[in-house]
């Protein structure tokens, strides 16, 4: 067993880990990043759905009532995400949710976070897109919105649109280095300043360090690249400051397992878990009506038949983000593409709705599907059960696991989903343009790619595990900066908010590092894109 020291230990290398890793390393600290997944680069990302390709870097983790899609590689979710880069609307920061009082810390409003949003938009960078960037699928949503009296926006993305080939394989990582993942900005920036990134290192346990001057010790296992459920070796690393960013279904599990050695953890760890209110629907679009009602046709003569073409997210309507509307009734409707891995979940109008003869016929019209994501206001009703012996979940197969989280939607969450379903039908079923059905919950519960809230920030110790500086209550120098810190659903894709919060957390992390005699300063320029 190896034993070593570092100034700052970063656990996880997605948005929440890469951003602090860069700033701490650039400021002069010794930074070590331990990442559970493998390290891949553009040439390794395969345009393939063969088992052994995408499922090396993406996990589907099934819990009780919810399934989570999560990145599992250096760069984390930023490598496999769809790069929609939206600031959360101002009202999202004012939500009360199930607490009956404001959930977010008093220090955080949209205006307070705007400067940090600007920084990450510059660093990634984020491209503001125009109609020429909107895919056929996004175009059908936009035209249907207009026809039903609604607005629709091209969605800003962290993509170099000049390099993008519109291949639609974003879940597999970007073969063309067009997606501005952490692999292209913060992580190489951190390494240029001496940070060490170790893939296939899974942290299992945190506890107090026995080394003088070091606050924490982390025990990790090194995973077999061919089978992540096998351990090749074990080690311990001592750190003066720990940044935990193992993802919203990873970080709470590590903390739960560490409760005893840490001398207790806040009661909000592993509670208030949210899927960001995600609700996916499939519209079965009538090609003839795309032409006659919407007046659309492609250069090759087809009307639509465009589901597999273009970037996964290109258009959304902001019309249901009215700050004056009651909580649980606001949402964004966004066009989205999922690879056919999720086809099983699409539903027909008649029982049995997700399998059988009619469902097979629906599959035959796959290019004419339009997939939609509603991001609603949910109730943070998810909880994590006792942790597994190792890892974040029980690995059943490569890319598939059984997690300990439970999510049983409350009536308010379901009410929000129903409101979004109604809005979607009003737009897309008008005059028979399409038939819209939300994904079945029979096979995987509700499905989210946006897990948040499981170790959240706040002002109230009962309702939040972290202070407004992302420090775990009662544990000086232990910070959580990933999606688990986001306190409530945002009604937009959470990546930009996770990144902005991580940027905002850095000065406090630097302060704690300096307290522990680390010679580090804050204020390095953003990594060069």
């Amino acid at each position: 067993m190896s034993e070593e020291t570092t100034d700052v230990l970063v656990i996880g290398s997605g948005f929440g880990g890469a951003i602090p890793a860069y700033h701490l390393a650039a400021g002069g600290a010794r930074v070590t990043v331990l990442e559970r997944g493998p390290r891949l680069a553009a040439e390794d990302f395969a345009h393939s759905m063969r088992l052994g390709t995408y499922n090396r870097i993406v996990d589907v983790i099934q819990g009780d009532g919810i399934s989570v899609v999560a990145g599992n590689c250096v760069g984390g979710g930023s490598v496999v995400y769809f790069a929609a880069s939206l600031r959360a609307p101002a009202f999202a920061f004012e939500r009360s949710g199930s607490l009956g009082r404001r959930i977010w810390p008093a220090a955080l409003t949209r205006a307070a976070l705007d400067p940090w949003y600007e920084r990450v938009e510059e660093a990634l960078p984020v491209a503001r897109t125009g109609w020429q960037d909107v895919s056929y699928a996004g175009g059908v949503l936009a035209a249907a919105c207009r026809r039903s009296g609604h607005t629709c926006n091209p969605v800003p993305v962290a993509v170099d649109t000049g390099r993008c080939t519109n291949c639609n394989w974003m879940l597999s990582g970007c073969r063309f280095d067009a997606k501005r993942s952490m692999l292209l900005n913060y992580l190489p920036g951190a390494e240029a300043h001496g940070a060490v990134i170790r893939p296939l290192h899974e942290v299992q346990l945190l506890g107090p360090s026995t080394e003088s001057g070091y606050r924490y010790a982390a025990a990790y296992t090194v995973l077999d690249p061919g089978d992540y459920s096998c351990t090749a070796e074990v080690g311990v690393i001592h750190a003066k400051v720990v940044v935990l960013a193992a993802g919203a279904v990873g970080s709470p599990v590590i903390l739960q397992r560490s409760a005893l050695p840490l001398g207790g953890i806040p009661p909000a760890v592993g509670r208030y878990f949210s899927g960001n209110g995600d609700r996916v629907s499939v519209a079965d679009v009538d090609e003839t009506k795309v032409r006659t009602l919407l007046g659309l046709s492609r250069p090759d003569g087809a009307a639509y038949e465009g589901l597999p073409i273009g970037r996964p997210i290109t258009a959304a309507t902001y019309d249901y983000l009215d700050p004056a509307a009651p909580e649980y009734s606001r949402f964004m409707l966004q066009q989205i593409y999922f690879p056919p891995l999720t086809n099983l979940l699409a539903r027909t109008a008649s029982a049995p709705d997700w399998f059988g003869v009619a469902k097979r016929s629906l599959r035959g019209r796959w290019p004419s599907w339009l997939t939609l994501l509603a991001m609603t206001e949910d109730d943070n009703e998810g909880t994590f059960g006792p942790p597994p012996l190792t890892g974040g979940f029980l690995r059943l197969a490569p890319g598939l696991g059984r997690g300990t989280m439970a999510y049983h939607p409350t009536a308010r969450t379901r009410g929000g989903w129903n409101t979004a379903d109604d809005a979607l039908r009003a737009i897309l079923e008008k005059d028979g343009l399409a038939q819209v059905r939300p994904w079945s919950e029979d096979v995987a519960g509700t499905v989210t790619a946006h897990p948040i809230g499981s170790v959240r920030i706040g002002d109230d110790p009962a309702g939040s595990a972290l202070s407004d500086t992302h420090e775990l209550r009662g544990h000086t120098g232990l910070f959580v900066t990933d999606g688990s810190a986001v306190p409530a659903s945002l009604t937009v894709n959470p990546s930009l908010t996770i990144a902005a919060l991580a940027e905002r957390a850095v000065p406090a992390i630097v302060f704690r590092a300096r307290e522990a005699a680390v010679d580090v300063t804050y204020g390095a320029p953003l990594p060069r894109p």
Partner: protein
Amino acid sequence: MTSRDMRRRDVVTALTATLTALAAGQVIRPGAADALGSTGGRAEAAGESWTTQTLEAFADTLIPGQRRYPGDLAVAGAVTGPGAVQAGVVDVLTSPDLPLAPLLPEIAALLDARAVAYALDHLVLLPVTSPPFVGLSFAQRTDLVAGLFRPGTPDRPVWQILGLVTGLAFDTAATLDTAQAVAAAHPGLAWLHFPPPDADGLWRFPQFSYGRALADTHPATTASGSPA
């Protein structure tokens, strides 16, 4: 004795015969996964194990296809054209990339036990020459499978995983590189009309947009394109 009692007695007699035959080993039910691999997905009625037939019938219930040959029992023949069986579901279930193979005989036995219980409940006479689940009609298989996925079903996670893998076989050609699968007209990908890649095996869509404004944008959009 009513006709209903009579029917129930016939069913119980037939089920008893089936279970007795199973217990005595008179009905071949090889458990080894390699037996699956040697016959899976091929049009050889005689060589198919009970495990294979049962799993094929389950997959055919989720994504039906046409019978492969006269007398095909596993595939119910509810449609013409390809289904999960034609798309290679057995190859995926037994793939070395998944750890399922050793568990398949037990999973099939569980499904067959469910079919026996279903037959008892619904007064269905099952033949003794095929696995109980295969002995059900397509409508009965459909009814049974719908029940397996209802919340509260104790072994629901087993069927969820079997369902996911069945979907992967048809919708993603999970044991094949996608470019090769498209080139070889994989039945599932062909059914979806999955588009072909460029000559180098990578996908690019130079034409992807209607290229014009199709709606007014929201008046409160910020400079970065976000909602206010």
